């Protein structure tokens, strides 16, 4: 009956038994640019080869969930910005969606469109920044990262004119958004989105067939479908292993069923596929952006009857999840009828995606650990919470 493999760590046989070489225990991190934040790995090495790897984290832990239990529902919204601080708007959306499920709040159409536009822009900037960081990790000092950041800055400018902040946007509200689009914002956004295909072509020409990138990534850190599903891996790195699971298609939350877009799938599940999936997803995001910017209707951005102050949902619980750029971001809320959530849980995609890090790295060289970690795409704000 069972086709799924039981999770088991198969460690290579220790060469110390043969008396030929000695194992070296190495602590990678926590203070190093390649670890993407304060993150440490205890690695056991046989020469250059990784025998064992244990991720160590919690340096950025501030117990976000406990803080939220002492906050009102709305009071936690700015804290969600600080989870995955590159993609604050998708964090906002995931939390707003969970609360809307908990209290049964409807969202007006214009707000749904604004959510999709900002979320796809967030996905675009996350993926382009990630590819920049990934190539940086491989030693391509600066150039690809600067290309990626050039586009990212333009998106952040758009976010700033919309929400007042570049990164800590705190923009979504239960039942809609905080403010309407400023005058001329849509034209600006349309003009910018029209330039993106050119950037994508340029970015792809720069990297996709680069010899060093291929040598460093192809066949490195291969993740099988079975492992990916069993380990709960989500997001682009799941689809790079060929599993067709995107919450925008599966749950159709918001208004994602209105847009025509495809889910790119990888074949090999290696680091190169994980890089390529992001390039392809950026193109799909541009497609969604074009459609959303064309169709966005006039109307209210929040239901005027929605209670902002003194918001007390009825006792019960709800789990809401969205396809954040890094994977499934879920919020599980338990209400006891008071103004504060009884339990507030963040299902962090980065934390769960890290589960497979050891299995991906075993047998590879220590330099590949940096590349594999880079391709998993973690942000410590969301891992540690």
């Amino acid at each position, binding site marked *: 009956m*069972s086709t*799924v493999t039981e999770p088991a760590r198969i460690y290579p046989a220790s060469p110390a038994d043969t008396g030929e070489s000695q194992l070296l225990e190495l602590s990678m991190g926590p203070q190093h640019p390649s670890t993407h934040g304060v993150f440490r790995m205890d690695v056991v090495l046989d020469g250059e080869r990784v025998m064992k790897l244990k991720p160590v984290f919690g340096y950025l832990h501030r117990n976000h969930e406990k803080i939220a239990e002492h906050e009102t529902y709305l009071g936690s919204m700015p804290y969600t910005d600080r989870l995955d601080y590159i993609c604050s708007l998708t964090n906002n959306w995931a939390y707003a969606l969970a609360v809307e499920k*908990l209290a*049964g709040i409807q969202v007006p159409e214009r707000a749904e469109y604004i959510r999709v536009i900002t979320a796809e822009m967030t996905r675009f900037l996350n993926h382009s920044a990630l590819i920049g960081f990934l190539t940086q990790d491989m030693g391509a000092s600066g150039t690809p990262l600067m290309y990626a950041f050039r586009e990212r800055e333009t998106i952040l400018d758009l976010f700033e004119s919309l929400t007042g902040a570049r990164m800590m946007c705190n923009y979504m509200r239960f039942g809609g958004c905080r403010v309407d689009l400023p005058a001329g914002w849509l034209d600006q956004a349309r003009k910018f989105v029209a330039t993106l295909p050119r950037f994508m072509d340029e970015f792809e020409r720069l990297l996709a067939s680069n010899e060093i990138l291929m040598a460093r990534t192809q066949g490195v850190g291969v993740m099988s479908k079975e492992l990916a599903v069993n380990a*709960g891996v989500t997001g682009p790195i799941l689809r790079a292993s060929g599993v067709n699971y995107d919450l925008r298609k599966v749950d159709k939350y918001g208004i994602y069923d209105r847009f025509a877009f495809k889910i790119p799938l990888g074949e090999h599940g290696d680091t190169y596929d994980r890089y390529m999936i992001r390039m392809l997803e950026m193109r799909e995001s541009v497609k969604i952006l074009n459609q959303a910017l064309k169709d966005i209707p006039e109307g209210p951005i929040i239901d005027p009857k929605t209670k902002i102050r003194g918001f007390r949902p009825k*006792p019960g619980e709800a789990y809401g999840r969205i396809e954040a750029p890094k994977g499934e971001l879920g919020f*599980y809320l338990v209400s006891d009828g008071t103004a504060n959530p009884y339990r507030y849980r963040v299902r962090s995609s980065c934390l769960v995606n890290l*589960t497979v890090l050891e299995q991906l790295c075993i047998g590879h060289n220590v330099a590949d650990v940096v590349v594999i970690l880079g391709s998993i795409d973690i942000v410590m704000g969301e891992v*540690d919470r």
Partner: protein
Amino acid sequence: MTLETIKSEIETKVPGCVLEIVPNPSPSAQHSLRIDPAHAVAIATFLRDSEDLRFDYCSNVTGIDWPDKEISEKVKVKQIVDGVEKEVEEVRKSHTIGYLEVVYHLFSMEKKHGPVILRMRTEDRAEQVHLPSLTPVWQSAEFQEREIFDLYGVIFDGHPDLRRILMWDGFKDHPMRKDYVEPDDYEYEPTAHDEVLERARQHRTVMGAQ
């Protein structure tokens, strides 16, 4: 597929298990299934491998603390006062034992359905806090169960690598519990927690406060 049919299917396939549907009154209507810890691994394996269910993806593992509660009820009791029967109000206090709860959100990547929500409860909050680990069934539970062990103190039997994950190794308490008291001297963290409290207490005595 409704939760009732899943429940009856589990009952036929896993004999002897005790299941209970926990209703969710909120508009989300995500009802959950309370399972008994003794059969948890068998139930989870069945849910994962069953041909028409295939819950191959365990998305979210959450710990919840439900502390001991004292409920005082006002009950009207008939009493004979001075030879006359009268209704007298009496306050009855009942004490419920709290527990720790672990909630699993399951989805199916193959069939694209879900969620099915499983709940497990410990017997109390202090002594019997053992629950079976579902990491052998879904590896995605590995870090999340470690987190619950760290922050709630639930001991998962059968977990391959049960250590603290977010707090440092020398930390003593479980901060997500509702009755957790913060140390009042953050300067000295990360020294052992109780030592800090003791030092703070002595300090207060020396200063002439209570």
